């Protein structure tokens, strides 16, 4: 246990995490520091392209093994099942309406790609190898949770509003297209392709991630500041307990599939993280009655900072302790 806490404390002092803390503190202190919207968008495009490409190149270098399909299937199942766990926990801890609880639950089944990127950066920094195809697992885990959330609402008597257009928007949202597309480019071009652009996508990666997380800290801090009074103690407790429960379920799933220590840590991170890009957009279309302040504040203001500062180091340490990696 002491080892786990030591590792967590060491990771907390990385430039990536401290950049996030700087953004969070600046926003909470009402500084006028801001990252222009277009710059933040460009940083996120860079990060998604780089992480997808590197994942694809890793698959090309190491070859595919039998665990790929099993891990993809497990990711799908996790994303579909986690909202039900979250929904039950919300009913125990909070007094949210069924629609609000279902919308929040959907966010916790889906994933935060930024948390995933930060986790891969921590693993790389500590030279812990992981399966390159975990990027594809992340993409698979984006959408099933949305269907589970809508099903939770429909069982409560309200009609679900999932149309073909919404399904297309979810499956072809920019993040998924870029992530999966760059993954395939990396897989097709392999080590040679990676070498030809590594000075662009490998060397500057951590620095760009620092700037992006500075912006994420600002966004999370602003959200927290403007949302005082929206979340009660039970909801905040959910935002911290649910990622830990999710990570434990992810740990079990990863052990069943037989992933490497790095892969175990990443599946734990994916199971622990909550969406704040794809799912909020889908919920605004499909469940407009649900209060966006509740799910955005929980996901972005509570769970994201928790995962980034305490969660990731904890999940990495636990995965190493369990797998002996």
């Amino acid at each position: 246990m002491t080892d786990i806490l030591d590792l967590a404390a060491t990771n907390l002092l990385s430039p990536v995490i401290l950049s996030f803390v700087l953004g969070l503190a600046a926003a909470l202190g009402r500084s006028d520091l801001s990252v222009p919207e277009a710059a933040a968008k460009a940083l996120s495009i860079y990060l998604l392209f780089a992480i997808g490409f590197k994942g694809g190149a890793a698959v090309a270098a190491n070859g595919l093994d039998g665990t790929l399909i099993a891990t993809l299937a497990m990711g799908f199942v996790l994303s579909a099942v986690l909202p039900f766990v979250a929904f039950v926990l919300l009913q125990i801890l909070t007094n949210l309406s069924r629609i609000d609880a279902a919308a929040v639950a959907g966010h916790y089944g889906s994933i935060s790609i930024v948390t995933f990127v930060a986790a891969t950066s921590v693993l790389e920094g500590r030279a812990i190898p992981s399966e390159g195809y975990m990027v594809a697992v992340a993409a698979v885990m984006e959408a099933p949770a949305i269907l589970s959330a809508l099903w939770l609402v429909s069982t409560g008597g309200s009609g679900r509003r999932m149309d073909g257009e919404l399904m297309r928007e979810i499956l072809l949202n920019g993040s998924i297209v870029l992530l999966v597309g760059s993954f395939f480019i990396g897989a097709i071009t392999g080590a040679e392709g990676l070498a030809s652009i590594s000075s662009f996508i490998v060397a500057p990666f951590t620095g760009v991630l620092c700037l992006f997380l500075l912006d994420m800290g600002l966004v999370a801090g602003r959200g927290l500041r403007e949302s005082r009074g929206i979340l009660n103690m039970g909801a905040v407790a959910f935002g911290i307990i649910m990622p830990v429960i999710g990570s434990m379920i992810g740990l079990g799933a990863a052990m069943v599939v037989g992933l490497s220590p790095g892969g175990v840590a990443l599946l734990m991170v994916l199971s622990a993280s909550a969406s704040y890009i794809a799912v909020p957009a889908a919920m605004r279309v499909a469940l407009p009655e649900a209060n966006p302040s509740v799910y955005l504040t929980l996901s972005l203001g509570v769970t994201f900072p928790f995962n980034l500062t305490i969660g990731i180091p904890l999940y990495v340490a636990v995965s190493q302790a369990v797998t002996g990696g």
Partner: protein
Amino acid sequence: MKTHKAKRVVITIEAIMQKRLTDTLEGAGVTGYSILPVLGGSGRSGAWSREGQISRASGMVQVVCIIREERLDGLLEAAFEVVEKHIGVVTITDVEVLRAERF
């Protein structure tokens, strides 16, 4: 200079609903409109801002249409179909335009 009476309809709506709204408007024969970004604001669902927005989920846009008065009801019925359950504001004001044939 001679001016002509018209109606200016401003629909402030979530960015994620923009295409659904404009598709519906076009389906109702309203093919002329402008879309403006909204920098930020505060309402029943709390405060929000465009700056630093990482998701289109909580951003807003304004769809502005200027039409002849007799077409107003058709536009409003089409718009209501989309905005009924969503965050947003619909306002209608009297305006005057120079070239009536354009509306």
